[in-house]
């Protein structure tokens, strides 16, 4: 069905020149990791200015993750994932959707914390930030596998799948 709605697909099996999802995720990965770094440094050096830097980065990450999922779903649907790649893609999809809820939830929590007192950060929030960081790193690892190990949307792999040598 998707094929009828999109322009003709290129040799990456995409309706546009290159994959977009790995670009949009810059703004989730970098912002979440940097927000956590700012929180940790801010907490131990008592530089409360960094709490604001952290909050605004999380704010932006929350917007970005939904855009990342939209492109992620489009590109996953067009990825022609072959047998060995499928479990990794499934887990990446599941964790990606979960992360949208987790990132939005943590940012919401941060909004309330900031509303009450922007100079104070409960230690529990740092723990949540650490867990989020670990989840994001694992999600990056899964996505890296899809691109660099399984080669989804790379020309040689797409070619082999279309020729039928890889299924």
């Amino acid at each position: 069905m998707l094929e009828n709605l999109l322009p003709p697909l290129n040799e990456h099996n995409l309706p546009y020149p290159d994959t977009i999802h790995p670009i949009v995720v810059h703004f989730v990965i970098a912002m979440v990791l940097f927000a956590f770094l700012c929180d940790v440094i801010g907490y131990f050096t008592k530089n409360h200015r960094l709490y604001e830097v952290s909050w605004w980065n999380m704010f932006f990450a929350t917007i970005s993750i939904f855009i990342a999922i939209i492109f992620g779903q489009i590109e996953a649907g067009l990825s022609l994932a072959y047998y060995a790649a499928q479990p990794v893609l499934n887990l990446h999809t599941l964790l990606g959707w979960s992360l949208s809820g987790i990132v939005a939830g943590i940012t919401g929590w941060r909004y309330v914390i900031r509303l009450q007192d922007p100079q104070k950060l409960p230690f529990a929030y740092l723990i949540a930030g650490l867990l989020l960081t670990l989840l994001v790193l694992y999600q990056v690892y899964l996505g890296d596998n899809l691109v660099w190990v399984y080669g989804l949307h790379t020309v040689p792999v797409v070619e082999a799948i279309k020729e039928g040598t890889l299924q």
Partner: protein
Amino acid sequence: MNYELIEQLRSQYGANGLPYAIPIHPNLVHLTLGLFIIGIAFDVVGVLFPLEKSVFKFLAIPATRTNFFDVGWYNMLASAIITFFTVATGFYEIMLAYPINGIKSAWGLGALETMLWHGVGGVVLLTLIVGMTVWRGFQRYLWRSDRARQVQWSYLAVGFLIMFLMFLHGTLGAHMAGEFGVHNTAGNLLRLGKDPNVFLN
């Protein structure tokens, strides 16, 4: 690079041509680009703050102008620091690259041309990012430390220009990965006539 030298190393490395499973450079690129672009973006938000005040009020999000400039500064600083590592890992991995030969990218460049431009571009961008950070630091701590609008328009303009360079540069990098199959495990297995479904299961 010298083909024989690479071959000596390759025998010890994995199917992706690296001594580890996943390339490091593309991951650090997330940080370089994310931090730079969002740094500039928040400086834009800070500069245009008078126009946005009512929006933030409507959304019930407390916002102070100086905080946006804090984000602009710290994100740019972090981008400059991390980019040294982005470039360092990039050179390590580009020297071990073993691209598909005899094809042209979507931009009509061969593998070696793409790699050379991406290598040179990386050093140019590192220089520009460090330069922007120094410029931003001067605005923050010396030239405009007492002004409500901490950032010059020209800084933002150059920022957008650099983003355009980043787009060109990033597309060359995407061509290396997606078209020339550099450091791609499944792509290399296919080149060797092996079935990724068997070796990557």
